[in-house]
């Protein structure tokens, strides 16, 4: 497999090129998995319209143009008086619209010469309009969050529901990448490089990218017809490796979900979860590679038990080890320069600075004076490491923790320390991805270990139990708890004390049909 890191972009805005070199530009903790998925859809739809869906002719040269859809967004999310007006003028439709136009005229943001009058022709009365808006608002992604209105998204019923995260001012907008931090772009590139884009696209065009879906058409009806709402070209994404086994595993899981019998759209929450998991694995695996650690990435999972168990400790240790890994990788990645030929030839600080500039784009030209004063190249490295770690701590370092929580992989439930303790929704996603139809429980555990490195039962924990860190019984109890939880979720059929089958309800459904 081609494991050469791709060349970095010629122009670098950031203070240094360290996080990005390892994980790409970029993994962003504040962009939740759902928003990553939404950004991804924006990229894909735009590329689809340009006839390049999942095609990367030259690495890291993605340039796409998402939609802004400011009419739609003002109506949905910057429209606080809607219900008030609707009930106040319940018996005077004309007045309701007039009042609303006036309020919107003052309150809207980002549209030049805004005119909302087209709506009146499309709805038979204001009450209808208000109830449609209320319904669409209730589909807001991540429910009631406290993000700004221009960072709210509705459920992706189709292409007309897609638009990018923006910072909207009175008469214009910029993309400040507050919540679309390019993680979705990375996801897009990963799926592109998995080589399974065509299959994935075909499936998505049946649901999220299907323009003829009724609800998509409803959303389209809220936008004026002739307004162009494309944003400027977005470029600059960087995904370091052309090929990784992880890309294909991710794509495979997507396909198992998309090709199962899950009813329309219901696969999406699972796609989001499983993407989150793969990106967490990606972030850890990249860090391991830098650290020269070739052991399989494993997670010790506690299936939540009412009481403290040894598994809880182990799983918490496993979490903490992973949580520190990216920081260790940063340091290792920088210090590896010391082994290089060019560093050995360094005679003074200036030469050392040049080497670092070449390798890591640090320090910036205008900041050179701040670092020149250090005593030795060693001090320079230390200074750089601490600057890099400070920067790392702001976002990439938090990725593992934040995303783990978002997808329900890690939690603090019943304890003070964070640990891997998967929640029901994630467990369901895993069953849907791993079990085509029916699978014996022990095989299921094996499969989870093989695919995701999840250690749950005693067979997967052999290494730990042999090292005396826990007894087999603790792990078989853990597996039993999983069995019970899956059974209570209707995902497992238990035959007796020693045998159970995990069942994918959407894999089996067709079989039951008369």
């Amino acid at each position: 497999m081609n494991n050469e890191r791709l060349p970095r972009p010629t122009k670098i805005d950031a203070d240094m090129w360290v996080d990005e070199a390892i994980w790409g530009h970029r993994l962003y903790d504040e962009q939740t998995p759902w928003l990553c998925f939404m950004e991804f859809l924006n990229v894909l739809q735009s590329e689809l319209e340009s006839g390049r869906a999942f095609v990367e002719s030259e690495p890291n040269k993605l340039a796409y143009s998402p939609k802004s859809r400011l009419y739609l967004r003002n109506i949905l999310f910057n429209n606080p008086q809607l219900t008030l007006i609707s009930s106040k003028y319940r018996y005077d439709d004309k007045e309701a619209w007039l009042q609303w136009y006036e309020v919107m005229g003052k309150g809207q943001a980002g549209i030049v010469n805004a005119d909302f009058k087209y709506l009146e022709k499309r709805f038979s009365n204001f009450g209808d309009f208000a109830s449609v808006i209320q319904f669409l608002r209730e589909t807001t992604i991540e429910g009631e969050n406290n993000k700004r209105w221009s960072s709210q998204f509705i459920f992706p019923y189709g292409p007309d529901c897609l638009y990018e995260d923006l910072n909207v001012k009175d008469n214009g907008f910029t993309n400040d990448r507050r919540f679309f931090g390019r993680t979705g772009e990375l996801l897009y590139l990963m799926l592109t490089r998995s080589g399974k884009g065509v299959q994935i696209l075909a499936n998505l065009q049946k649901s999220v990218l299907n323009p003829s879906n009724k609800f998509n058409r409803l959303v389209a009806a809220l936008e004026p017809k002739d307004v162009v709402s494309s944003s400027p070209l977005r470029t600059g994404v960087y995904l370091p490796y052309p090929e990784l086994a992880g890309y294909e595993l991710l794509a495979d899981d997507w396909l198992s979900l998309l090709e199962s019998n899950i009813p329309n759209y219901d696969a999406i929450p699972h796609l989001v979860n499983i993407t989150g998991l793969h990106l967490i694995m990606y972030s850890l695996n990249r860090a391991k590679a830098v650290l020269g650690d070739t052991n399989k990435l494993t997670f010790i999972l506690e299936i939540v038990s009412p009481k403290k168990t040894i598994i809880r400790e182990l799983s918490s240790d496993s979490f903490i080890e992973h949580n520190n890994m990216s920081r260790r990788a940063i340091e290792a990645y920088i210090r590896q320069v010391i082994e290089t030929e060019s560093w050995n030839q360094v005679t003074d600080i200036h030469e050392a600075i040049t080497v670092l500039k070449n390798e890591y784009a640090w320090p910036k030209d205008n900041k050179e004076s701040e670092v020149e004063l250090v005593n030795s190249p060693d001090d320079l490295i230390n200074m750089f490491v601490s600057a890099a770690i400070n920067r790392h701590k702001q976002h990439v370092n938090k990725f593992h923790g934040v995303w783990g929580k978002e997808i329900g992989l890690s939690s603090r439930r019943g304890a003070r320390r964070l640990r891997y303790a998967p929640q029901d929704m994630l467990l369901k996603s895993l069953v849907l991805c791993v079990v085509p139809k029916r699978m014996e429980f022990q095989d299921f555990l094996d499969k989870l270990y093989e695919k995701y490195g999840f250690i749950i039962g005693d067979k997967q924990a052999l290494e730990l139990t042999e090292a005396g860190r826990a007894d087999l019984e603790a792990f078989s109890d853990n597996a039993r708890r999983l069995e019970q939880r899956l059974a209570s979720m209707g995902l497992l059929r238990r035959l007796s004390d020693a045998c159970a089958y995990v069942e994918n309800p959407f894999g089996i459904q067709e079989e039951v049909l008369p």
Partner: protein
Amino acid sequence: MTIVQSEWISFLRQYGPIPRNDNMYDEAIHRIIKRKNIKPIIVDSFYLSELIENYNSPNPKSVILTGTAGDGKTFNCREVWLALNGSLQEWQNDDKVKELDLLNFKKLYVIKDLSELKDEERGILNQFVNSVLNPNDGNVFLVAANDGQLIEAWKHLGTDPLTVQVKQCVEDLLVTEIKEKSGFNLRLYNLSQISAARLFPQIVDVVLQHPGWNDCNQCSLREDAQTGRTCPIWENRNRLEGNKDEQLIRSRVTDLLELCEFNGVHLPIRQLLLLVSNMLLGHPEAKDRLMSCSDAAKIVEENKTSLASVYRNILGDNLTERRRESTDVFAALGKFGIGYETSNTIDNILIFGEDDPELLPYYEDLVLNDTYYGADQTFRANQKEYLEGVLDSGVNFLESLRSQRQRLFFVIPREKENDLKLWHLTTFQYAGEFLSDVYRVAKNGKVATQITSRISQGLNRIFTGLLAKNNDELILATSGSHSQAKVSRIFEESISVPKKRGESMQIRMNANGTLVIEVKLSSSVATVELPLQLVRYEFLSRVAEGALPGSFSRECYEDILGFKSKLLKRLEERRRIDEEDSDDESDLSFRIIRLNQDGLIDDRIVEVNYDE
């Protein structure tokens, strides 16, 4: 008279939750029975005669006996062996595979425990494959294995098409819970399907009628008229026998076991024997927490008989927490939270009953009346201190309240169940109603409309995410996607709950004898069923009555949404058949729902004039 050390009691004790309970294993029991000359505890085997008949018939089929550890697989094998004139001696030797020539000229192979076979001995399974596929084969098998071992053993077998075929057949029989599949000369009996609720009364009878109790006739401890002291074992035995209260303990425990089964927990005979043994002999201060005769004497001496309470023992309260939780039967019964859950009525009776004229009759009846396990001296002393507010006296009393609640659950007479809200003493407030008014009624009749209405109201609240009161129709609504949003605003259809033009919702037994909520959309599409077990019933009832139980809401919530998905799928089908195309390319009309002032669901038809 002296205190008798009964062999029977120490034999019975071996069945209890002690560290090494040999009596768990058929093999070991036989040795003890022989040595001590005790009559074994034998519960009628459900399938035995059918099995023997099979092997005596001219065309016997091979049989796999499967089930949970303790269901009686080995017992059944041995009884079949002996009935077919196999010798006991040969049975007891170490051969893993036993051979016997049958009268129908076939050769019977008995494998009493598949997991005992070593790898090199597994070859015999190839013969098994042949006998299953070929009815004229000269061999016939009887194989006992729990299903885990069964699946495991097959994994190691070859992958030739014949083996795979038989393997698939075995898996299908296991998973679909049927006995036979055509084309295969094989039967599979799953002993785990025998209901614990049915076995339990039988086991109690067999234990209570055991001649071993005659030992007690000579014992001075049995009932001492002079001192008024009674042996706690004997006391427990009498209470379990229930001559005074119409066998109330037995019937309440049976109810609990039946409810466990609804929640998918199977308890094998071995666990039931363990339960009975613990009920009679449990005491936290005895060795291994189970009384022997000499322990009993000491306990009487030290005035600690109240801790031997049969009511606490049912729930394993005599055991350490660890042991209780690792023993299946107590883990299962523990889920009911008996002793921890309560209602104001019950606690008021226990605490203030004496001074409250309204509660006094109950207090006398339920507490004062029972001086052995109820209002014994310690309880009354603690109660008095607690009420008078003596410092630091609360802990002991509150601790004993738990035991008293446990006792009350098993002694409140049937006719007072409703007045005293018996099932509020458990986690499942609707459990009593579920058993008597739903499950037992549905077996041969119609569940009351009032209950069906409540359940449909609960369903509607989950289906729509709104606090709806509609209870004579099911409202199918989506949010465009099936399960994404918490509130579903888009009205799809309403299905009548009473029978009407092919539509209906009923609570009934389906063809497999499972209790289900059954929804019919029309005669042309298949019905949709949701198995209705206790947890779901409780959940839906509580949702309907308004209070969402936080503890077990999530899993049920998902289940109900899954059920909605299935209904919507059938609805699509019905529309296709009736040619009501809903998703017409040009149509942009929606029915959006909201709650009106009466809490009923209204819908508004919204039409949008827009074409691209």
